[in-house]
């Protein structure tokens, strides 16, 4: 099992005072909170932080943890010494809010068995509803256009026959509905942790986000595509073949279309009621004058076209 460096997780030195640790927790909790942080692994970061704090803020547990020493480095295989716990009296006090969240195997090995913590949620009792779980799921833009089924790996803490908390791994295939937007939440009833006694299972909540797309930008249900065009296409107009998330289409560029112009393809954004739009953002590009032929063409334009873009800047 992996050793967890709680001081590293909390970004505090090993000789930090209890006040330092409290301050560090509050600051990082604001940053890592899954409803604040944009990171896909925010849930895990926040959980790790909570666990680190649960240990370091309690002088008893902190002393026990420190006793293990800095001999182990994060990621190294770890086994607690055979006489682990001897000489330490764990008061088995209740935890703070959030402590009902499952802790890592590392924590359970060190502290779980000692405190004799009953595995129950906030409404403690013999019949308690199982814990809800939250996770982020990353999907592709195309999934929002067509709907999809995505497979996710879940690690659910469960209480086994001997009353120990073990982490069970399972795969779940989740239907992603058409028209979904970034930040929306899917509720999967009964896919959270098992309940205690007759308590029913908790629920699983998935927050959706998009993987960055190679060519599209997404804003709500609107999708943006930057379209590079040539000077002659801009000047003369043209019909160009462009990609859209739902397949290729021909786009007519009007003569005189300018750089930065947004052309709206109505209702071709992410489906929904109302559907989003697809915006083509014109990017005027220039061929470089690499050879004599190109240079000659440019010289002709310079000599034969009367065009002064800096007239308004004249002295």
């Amino acid at each position, binding site marked *: 099992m992996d050793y967890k460096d709680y001081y590293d997780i909390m970004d505090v030195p090993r000789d930090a005072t209890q006040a330092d640790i409290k301050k560090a927790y509050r600051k990082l*909790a604001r940053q890592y*909170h899954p409803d604040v942080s944009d990171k896909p692994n925010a849930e895990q970061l*926040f959980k790790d932080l909570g666990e680190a704090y649960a240990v370091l803020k309690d002088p008893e547990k902190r002393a026990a943890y420190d006793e293990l020493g800095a001999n182990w480095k994060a990621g190294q295989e770890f086994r607690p010494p055979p006489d682990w716990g001897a000489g330490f009296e764990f008061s088995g006090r209740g935890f703070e809010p959030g402590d009902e969240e499952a802790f890592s195997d590392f924590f359970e090995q060190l502290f779980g068995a000692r405190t004799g913590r009953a595995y129950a949620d906030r409404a403690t009792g013999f019949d308690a509803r199982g814990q809800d779980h939250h996770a982020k799921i990353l999907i592709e833009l195309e999934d929002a256009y067509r709907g999809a089924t995505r497979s996710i790996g879940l690690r659910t803490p469960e209480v086994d026959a001997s009353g120990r908390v073990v982490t069970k791994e399972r795969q779940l295939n989740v*239907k992603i509905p058409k028209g979904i937007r970034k930040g*929306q*939440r*899917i*509720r999967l009833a009964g896919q959270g942790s098992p309940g205690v006694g007759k308590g029913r299972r908790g629920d699983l909540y998935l927050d959706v986000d998009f993987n960055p797309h190679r060519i599209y930008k997404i804003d709500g249900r609107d999708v943006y595509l930057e379209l590079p065009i040539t000077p002659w296409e801009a000047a003369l107009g043209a019909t160009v073949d462009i990609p859209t998330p739902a397949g290729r289409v021909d786009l007519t560029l009007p003569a005189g279309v300018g750089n930065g112009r947004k052309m709206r393809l109505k209702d071709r954004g992410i489906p929904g009621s109302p559907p989003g739009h697809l915006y083509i953002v014109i990017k005027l590009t220039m061929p470089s004058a690499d050879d004599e032929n190109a240079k000659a063409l440019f010289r002709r334009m310079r000599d034969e076209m009367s065009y002064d873009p800096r007239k308004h800047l004249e002295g």
Partner: protein
Amino acid sequence: MTSNTVAGILLDRTVTYSLRETCRVCGSEAEWVIALVEQGILQPTGEGRHEWEFSGSSVHTAMKARRLQLDLGLNLSGVALALELLDEIEMLRSRLGMLEADHD
């Protein structure tokens, strides 16, 4: 490892939850949800608490409010401010993402 396909419910405007269901999902008392309504954080339809209908996206907001309050110790006006600022930040990040794409 077992594998199965589940559909789930998208918490958007097309689904509605009663006050009681919202409390259950949030793990809160009715008074707490009522306080969110009074703060303007949630806007249910219907006259009176017994007819209140919360959209799925409202329930999503309530869940966020609950976690912010419990995990960060915010009071309700702090929660209201945090939610508004988070929405605005999300919108700005989106716009910024598109502007930065234009600079090659």
